[in-house]
């Protein structure tokens, strides 16, 4: 299973990851369209992104969420009805939505932000387990 | 005497919220308890003593079908 991880102790809060993510998926530089959010907590930067826990899979009201072959939790855009139940239910608060989008979005462990990070604070970990 | 939901009930020394709920058969969990207008949270039921003459409100929020 692939999961994006973040090293708080290295992160400088530059937010290049957010720029890279929102550019890659939504062609805009807007942190509200990024699937990784860096939050400043008295100059310690911690990251919010999907941990691929999969809790949203069984609760999805349209049966639109599944694990792909890498164990990454994904939303099937054709099936999603935009109910935002997953956004409300996410214990990690890492399922995001935007009013101009019909489907919520989340980290899919693609690695684009890893490359963009100037401090090597981000890494895609590949674990043995495939998740649920 | 105390009043529980505006009805008179007998009082005894050492009565607390939890023992009052037990006595009244109020087993429903989703309730709001106020003693003399002051809200009593669930964790304080056993500790909160009720004095003679107190006004106790036990609102059951049961929705029904």
């Amino acid at each position, binding site marked *: 299973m692939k999961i994006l991880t973040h090293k708080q102790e290295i992160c400088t809060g530059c937010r290049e990851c957010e720029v890279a993510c929102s550019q890659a998926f939504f062609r805009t530089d807007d942190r509200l369209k990024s699937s990784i959010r860096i939050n400043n907590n008295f100059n310690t930067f911690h990251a919010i992104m999907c941990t691929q826990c999969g809790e949203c899979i069984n609760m999805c009201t349209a*049966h639109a969420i599944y694990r792909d072959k890498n164990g990454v939790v994904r939303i099937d855009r054709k099936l999603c009805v*935009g109910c*935002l139940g997953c956004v409300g*239910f996410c214990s990690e608060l890492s399922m995001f939505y935007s009013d101009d989008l019909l489907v919520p979005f989340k980290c899919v462990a693609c690695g684009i932000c890893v490359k963009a990070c100037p401090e090597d604070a981000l890494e895609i970990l590949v674990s043995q387990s495939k998740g649920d | 005497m105390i009043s529980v*939901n505006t009805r008179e009930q007998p009082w005894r020394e050492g009565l607390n919220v939890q023992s009052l709920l037990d006595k009244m058969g109020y087993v429903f969990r989703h309730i709001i308890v106020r003693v003399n207008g002051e809200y009593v949270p669930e964790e304080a039921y056993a500790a909160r003593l009720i004095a003679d003459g107190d006004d106790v*409100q036990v609102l059951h929020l049961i929705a029904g079908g």
Partner: protein
Amino acid sequence: MGKILKQIRYTPAKIERGYSNKSLYINVGDLRIEEKEVTEFMKEKFVGGKGFDLWYLWNAVTPETRWDSPENEIVMSVGPLGGITQYSGTGKTLVCAISPLTGIPIDSNAGGYFGPLLKFAGWDALELQGKAEKDLIIFIDGNEGLISIEEGEEYPEDTHLLAEELTARFAGSEEDKVHVSVVSSGSAAKHVLMGMLNFTFYDPRRKTVRVKQAARGGLGTILRDKHIKALVVKFKGIKPNLNNPADISAINRIGVKYHKEMHDLDEKQNGMRKIGTANTILVMNKYDLLPTRNFQTGGDPEAVKISPEVFITQYLTQGLHDGCWYGCTMSCAKAADHFKLLTGPYAGQCVTVDGPEYECVAGLGSNLGIFDPQAILEQNFYCDTYGIDLISYATTVAFIMECYEREQIGPEHTGGLDLRFGNASASLELMHQMSRGEGFGLLAGLGIRRLKKVFAERFGADPKLLEDIGMENKGLEYSEYLHKESLAQQGGFALTNKGPQHDEAWLIFMDMVNNQIPSFEDKAYALFYYPMFRTWFGLCGLCKLPWNDIVPADNYKTDTPAKVPEHVQNYVDIFNAVTGKKIDKDELIRQSERVYNFQRVFNLRMGSGLRQHDKAPYRSLGPATAEEYLSRQERYDKQLRELQGLDPSAMSLAEKIAATRAWRENQFELLIDAVYKRRGWTNNGVPKPDHLKAIGMDLPMLLEVVEKHL
């Protein structure tokens, strides 16, 4: 596939601010298919849902119309909020017709996908009028723009077979099945007056069709009398903005907030996601409110055998989404999977049983003296597939069982069926008879009002006793709450428009336990506010459960926690966000008042709607029999002392029962006086012209009816 009798193409209307602005009329007699305009007048006065249904129904029938007259209509509509996906409980369809049981309009509310898909297919409402000679299937394809009426004789009648077959046939593939929804009844509906409608949704995880019901009033009986076997709608492409709302941002924000509340609090509160409405069974038992053996008492030690825990641990599949429309995170439509049937034509098969709801456990369980969870689920299944209203069935059979136990009727009348309390196999056999159209089942299917007459006139039963213990009002059977100690709930049941269904008001705890409405005026206010508030759900396409079956964490701090003010504000805000209107909490009530009073006048028009029609059987008001008095003697003796200044020790049991009865019947009359006054009605229950004017409902058609009764 049967021969196609008629087919038309149409251009599906786009939804604007929650409305397609078109309604569909189908006459199954002459196969007319017509499109009607939904007018600004309709939206202003009736909003949608039940409002539209009643408007169309009024215009379709005359005061002489009976339930089986060809001009009687089944009308269904989901309302402007119907079909949004972001909030919980936004897919409810309201269905109206002149009821076989009552002769006045019934309004019945169903989950499932049919109503929203119908709207997205371009139709705010559907009218079904006329009668066919042979069974028909009506199919509406909202993507293709196609309406098709075809022969349907060859299809099975029972819903668990019929709906699966139709879903499979009209879906192009397994993936397509979620786009199809069926309305159907069952084999019993031809033989009973309490036939109901099933509304389906396809469950892609279980790979099975699920059913919700528009249960009350006999709508399934009308469907089958019209020879409609099923309605099928298909629509693909559900998105969160299909209603073209004015402000999707507000809907999204409120939806996410509510979903989070559900995630954080449901488990601590009612556990709806685990068990659904049956979560209250043991609580009701503990508080002496669980109807037992025809509403004689409020509970039984054996109720632990049918507790929520039993169903959760032994029968109900946990952890899967169970909402009956998209976006419902309350997800309370639980199901028992791989349930093996023991009786009837499907004995030996493993099925999915949709339920049990509270009404099922209380009605088919404690109220029949049955404390066997397997028997409850099996009865639930057969009511669903046979198309029988579970509540009317349960309350009717409870009445029959008490008559049997009191030897008012005997085995010579029941064809040998031993209909004592607790006999689950006799109850199941009765259902199978209803399906086959034979035996005592045919009599039972008439419902309590007609049965009282049959028992008294043909079987020599005591009519006074029957009048007291037959739990019906206006011809409809009471739903499953013991309320003889709650004056407010006695009004909540009897002072309804359609008959004693608890969807208008559920005040038992507020009244009896919380003692929040002690005076007549308090009760009258509650019997004004709650029916008006709750009516609103049926105008808009909403389910009432998400309103108060979960409450925000800080609800207890508000002035009126029973109203759940934050959720009321959610509804006001979502209504405005969808429709672009600017209502507030007061206008919300006003919208309901218009439709509520319209329905009351409609009752008048149909020969009902007066004070005498709001009469309640004495068992609703107090202890009708010696056993009931003795079962709660301390309470009743205390009331004689404290309320009437009488000395029970100097009175015989018969005297005490009579004195209690006189007091309670008088209290009920005083309540009616107060409620009618608060509602703006005369002392005979007629909406006053100046009240109709004040709420903006002084329509000539209403004034004409009302004036005859002033």
